[in-house]
């Protein structure tokens, strides 16, 4: 659905995006991660034909964006952080204006989308009277009007309260489930990405430093989380018996080679040490991201 091949972008002497290649398959929710200034918004700008690439090729829905803009963006909807509207006009009028740039849109379709996002009662009020959450819904409505196959979301939860963030997350899942949309999500909120995305790419200083399935970031660690009555006593006993090789953080143990969790449990029970929980430690996206960035800093 989205293909970036060796794309780069320079603003003066500053290299904002360097040799970026990405592929977003159809039907996926794809996360784009990176700190401020990592090149996410520039990359999205190039996907939408708003920023001209210095080099490389950007294809959306199979069409080169710079040369075949109309075909490439015909089935694309986009939402940006802090969505901007004509505040002095009504929500409905805003939708009429914005949809006219794609194709002539019947009033019934506009009404349908207004209802879908839950703005029915306020559609004819001026946008300046809308709350942040209502503006976010209006942004979603304008993105859905052209019946998109691809939705590009650039920090869609920016500025929303926890309820709004939850609602936005549910809406994204609903869109993918009900309409089968391909979604590219750029976000700072790692928990949001973790809950929504199936694949991610991480950008750092304009370069892609990771791309893969979310499951790859959750690779199981060799560490085991152990919750016992007396961790120090348990560790000493396990070490004397040669069942663990290491321990850390007051709750994690590293089993010795060839030792399974069942053997540790049996031993602790036999020793009369209270055991409440034993579980394999799984790395979070946040842990993965921070480790990745640390590695990048070391390389730099």
């Amino acid at each position, binding site marked *: 659905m989205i293909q970036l091949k060796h794309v780069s972008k320079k*603003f003066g002497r500053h290299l904002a995006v360097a040799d970026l290649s990405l592929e977003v398959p159809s039907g996926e929710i794809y996360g784009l991660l990176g700190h401020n200034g990592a090149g996410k*918004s*520039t990359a999205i*700008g190039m996907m*939408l*034909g*708003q*920023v*001209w690439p210095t080099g490389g090729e950007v294809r959306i829905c199979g069409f080169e964006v710079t040369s075949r*803009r*109309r*075909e*490439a*963006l*015909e089935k*694309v*909807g*986009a939402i*940006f*952080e*802090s*969505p*901007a*509207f*004509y505040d*002095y*006009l009504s929500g409905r*009028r805003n939708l*009429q*204006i*914005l949809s*006219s*740039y*794609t*194709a*002539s849109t019947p009033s019934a379709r506009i009404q349908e989308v207004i209802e879908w996002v839950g703005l029915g009662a306020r559609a004819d009020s001026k946008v300046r009277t809308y709350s942040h959450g209502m503006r976010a819904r209006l942004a979603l409505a*304008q993105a859905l009007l*052209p019946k998109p196959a691809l939705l*590009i979301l650039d920090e869609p939860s920016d500025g929303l309260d926890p309820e709004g963030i939850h609602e936005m997350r549910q809406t994204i899942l609903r869109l993918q489930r009900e309409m089968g949309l391909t979604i590219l999500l750029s976000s700072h909120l790692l928990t949001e990405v973790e809950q929504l995305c199936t694949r991610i790419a991480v950008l750092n200083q304009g370069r892609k430093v990771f791309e893969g399935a979310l499951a790859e970031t959750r690779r199981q660690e060799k560490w085991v989380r152990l919750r016992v009555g007396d961790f120090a006593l348990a560790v000493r006993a396990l070490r004397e018996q040669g069942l663990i090789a290491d321990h850390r953080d007051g709750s994690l143990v590293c089993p010795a080679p060839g030792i399974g969790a069942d053997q540790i449990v049996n031993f602790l029970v036999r020793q009369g040490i209270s055991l409440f929980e034993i579980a394999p430690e799984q790395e979070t996206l946040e842990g993965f991201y921070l480790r990745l960035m640390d590695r990048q800093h070391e390389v730099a």
Partner: protein
Amino acid sequence: MFYNHLRGELWKLFGKKRTYIGFGTFLLAQNAMLLLFHFTHWQEGMERNLAGNGYPAQDYVSALTVALIMLIPQIVMLMPLYIALVGGDLVAKEAEDGTLRMILCRPISRFQLLTAKWVAGMIFAAVLVLVLGATALGFARCWFPWKGMFVFAPGMVFNALSASEGLKLYLCSHLFLTINASVILGIAFMFSCFNMKPAAATILALSFLFVNVVMEGIPFFENYRQWLLTHYFQVWLLVYSQPTPWERLGESLCVLLAFSLTSFLIGTAAFQARDIKS
């Protein structure tokens, strides 16, 4: 499709209060001038001028004459300001507010978008000039009778016309005024297409006009007037000349239209090359 884009641009343009500031100010200025003309020595001065040239003042101090007198300072001072304000907003304000980014994620080409905006701007310029002309005449008619028209612009026009001939030329001069207004709007629009704030686009357009006016007034540039844009803006007053200077009218029209087209193309080229970022 173009009709839909244009309709959207007109909704945006005429939907905001700022667009109407110009109309309101013109109405106030017209009434103030009318009162000044009626209650000061201004009217007497004109009557002496007419009498001195052998015209009976009572036949030519009319609604048409006063409407034109009211228009001249407004056209020279107020119109460029308000037209440049709207023209400077057309693209730059949308870029500043972030709505341009919302538009440009749609499958519309930048050229199509600018064309719709430019045409909407031209419609605004025409509406402003026509409303200005109509209200000036309307207000003047409330106070003065419908008689012959006297036109006097030092160094350019001195003419006395019948009411019907005067009205015909009054309408004709508004056609040329519309062209003047659209050229001013085109200059502000051109600057607005570059990466700058709306106020900067307005100020640059006004500065360009101001430099032209100043240079035109300096005797040194007497022989270079044909290189100054404002020299061609006089065409709206020249239509009242007797005999009609067709050659000068044709030349001015061609220069103004060429200037308008050039500013649009420069603006389009600048906008096309720009990166639109938040």
